[in-house]
């Protein structure tokens, strides 16, 4: 384990996509019409035809018995997020051996989840859905809505990171002249939220986490009572305003 300079140079250029095994877009909806609020989050397959958007919007409105004005709003919201995703699609992003920390901090119905773990970014076989399923199974979560929420949270963060890497790729290309690519990348790699593997798994340290960091990386699942849920909801709404 001599020189770790190999880490920095294995950057490859890849077409933009979410770095998971299936290229699904996380979509978040937060629509308010006439005092009625509809919040939702789910994953969407961008290779579905656009007609699917309207179908989905109508179906959702029908199932939840929302007023029909929601249909157009929902469809529009989904479409904008999809087009935004597609706008990144043609571009390149850099992938390398990057390990990023992912934080989960979400509340689904009565379950509160806090977690913090490391995720390998250039592993295109990774599957947030699988992770979510295992998480729920291992932690014994009974509420079936938690799984998808976790998967979506992970996906959103990966999406953001992917977008960042696209922009950084663009910047690097703009300012490429005269600089060596390697320098720039190592800078951007350690900056932001990537974990420097060199430091972590360097010569002297071991793979096992330090004891003081155990708490940080431990998953916490809390079941809330009704009053706590209401209190949290009220707080969230106040924050939003």
């Amino acid at each position, binding site marked *: 384990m001599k020189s770790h300079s190999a880490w920095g140079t294995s950057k490859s250029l890849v077409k933009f996509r979410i770095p998971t095994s299936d290229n699904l877009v996380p979509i978040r909806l937060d629509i308010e019409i*006439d005092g009625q609020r*509809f919040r939702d989050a789910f994953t969407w397959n961008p290779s579905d035809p656009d007609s699917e958007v309207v179908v989905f919007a109508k179906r959702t409105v029908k199932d939840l018995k929302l007023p029909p004005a929601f249909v157009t709003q929902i469809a529009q919201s989904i479409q904008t997020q999809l087009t935004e995703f597609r706008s990144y699609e043609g571009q390149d992003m850099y992938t390398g051996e990057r390990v990023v920390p992912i934080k989960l901090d979400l509340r689904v119905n009565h379950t509160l989840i806090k977690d913090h773990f490391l995720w390998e970014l250039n592993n295109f076989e990774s599957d947030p859905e699988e992770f979510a399923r295992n998480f729920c199974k291992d932690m014994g979560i009974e509420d079936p809505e938690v799984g998808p929420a976790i998967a979506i949270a992970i996906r959103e963060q990966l999406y953001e990171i992917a977008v960042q890497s696209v922009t950084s790729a663009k910047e690097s290309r703009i300012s490429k002249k005269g600089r060596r690519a390697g320098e720039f990348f190592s800078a951007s790699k350690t900056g932001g939220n990537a974990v420097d593997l060199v430091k972590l798994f360097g010569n002297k340290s071991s793979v096992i986490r330090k004891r003081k960091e155990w708490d940080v990386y431990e998953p916490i699942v809390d079941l809330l009572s009704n009053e706590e849920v209401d209190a949290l909801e009220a707080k969230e709404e106040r924050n939003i305003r």
Partner: protein
Amino acid sequence: MATGSNKSPSTPIPEPSAAKPISDAPTPTITIDLPPPSDSTPAAITTTSASAATSITAPNSIATPTTATAVSTSTSTSNSNARPHPEPLSSDADIIHIPSYSRWFAWNSVHECEVRFVPEFFDGRSPSKNPRVYKYYRNAIIRRFRENPAKKITFTEVRKTIVGDVGSIRRIFDFLEAWGLINYTGSSKPQLKWEEKESKLAAAALQGGDAAGGSGTNVTISKSKLCSNCKGVCSFACFASDKHDMTLCARCYVRGSYRDSSEFKRVEISEEAKTDWTDKETLQLLEAIMHYGDDWKKVAGHVGGRSEKECVTHFVNLPFGEQFDGPPESAELDTALSSQNLSRPTKRMCLSPLTDLSHPIMAQAAFLSTLVGVDVAEVAARAALTALSALGDGKLKESLKISSGAAKQQESDIASNSEDPNSMEGDLAEARLQLEKEDEELEKAISGIAVQTKEIEDKIVQFEEFDLQMERKRQQLQQLLNLLFVDQFTLSLHKTPAQPKAGESIGEGVKAD
């Protein structure tokens, strides 16, 4: 006339025995409907005896060797004697209905029609869509539905709880719904109407006008909704929330700005509460129904000024103590026969075509039963039942005469109604038992026939294949023969130039071949 009791007095309700799962199937049992009738009513023949259950498994096992359905002998007696249209059900019995065209379903395997209808998972185009994922989605959806089979599950509930991309989930959901593997519970509206009418007729005939009148007033009371906030009557639409157990009128809902829209469901109140039906309109409605039966467009046209929906809802809510003006019908014999027919469908599953009230005899039976009054109808039914049992013995004509005579006599004796109620009930119970027995036998026979026809079909298919192969072999042989002929011919041709008399010997050679 059947007493309309929902449970057979003699067979107790057994607790559902543990299902014997053949594989990973969950505990709910699955009964397979035999070929659904053309109007796609789920003719679930849930049986009340173990033997009948096994007769149903027989076609099941032949048709789908990979089927992992668990057919337990748990019974649902609530199904046997109640309405002709079986409703799913009391969760005690844990019986799930699926249509016969979905018999292929198995928890652990993927059938070829699934491959055909949802090909995106099987063509390997995208790495995340593979059969394993498909099975996971499909089984998850079906499992969620079966947790509460009485309620139709919506796509949104499903997709909120399954980890995956919503487009594929939607397609799988639609596929499953189309094939009746989920949401196969609701009865379509016309059926509901007829069975309600029948039950009302039965109730009216038996319990007299009082109960019917009572039920009529109950219906009108439950229609108006009060807002729990302002205590006013909700007119147009109200918002009902199960979570908070509240009903709000539209104004209060908006004012109170209840934001979480998923809790509140919007309920439309029909316009009928505002405009009352006059007697004349009601009469027109009934006449129209008599004439046109199920065709609500014509009925609405006849009544004039009322939409189809209004006609339907009003008819359904009619208290049946009313007397109709039907076409005059005087023969007691007809009464006996037709009331016998009326008693039958309340027991039978919808194999009987007489459950449809548009049938003229049925309609007349309804009128007559209200015209002649409760007691006469009961007595006539008894007489009819004795006639029926006598029919089984082969004494057709005599017993009919007897029954008609008895009916006449009893009608004349109606004032001095001195029958012993107990014996009547005993007779009725016996008759009912016999009818049930015959039902079961009939079902057994039918399922046996279905099995046999399936076998025969399979054999025919095999024979056809054999025929095809034979034909091929024959053709091959023919070709070989031809080749042989050609060989011999050329051989003889080679031989003959050695001999001087070419022409003759060629001719000989040819002839010899």
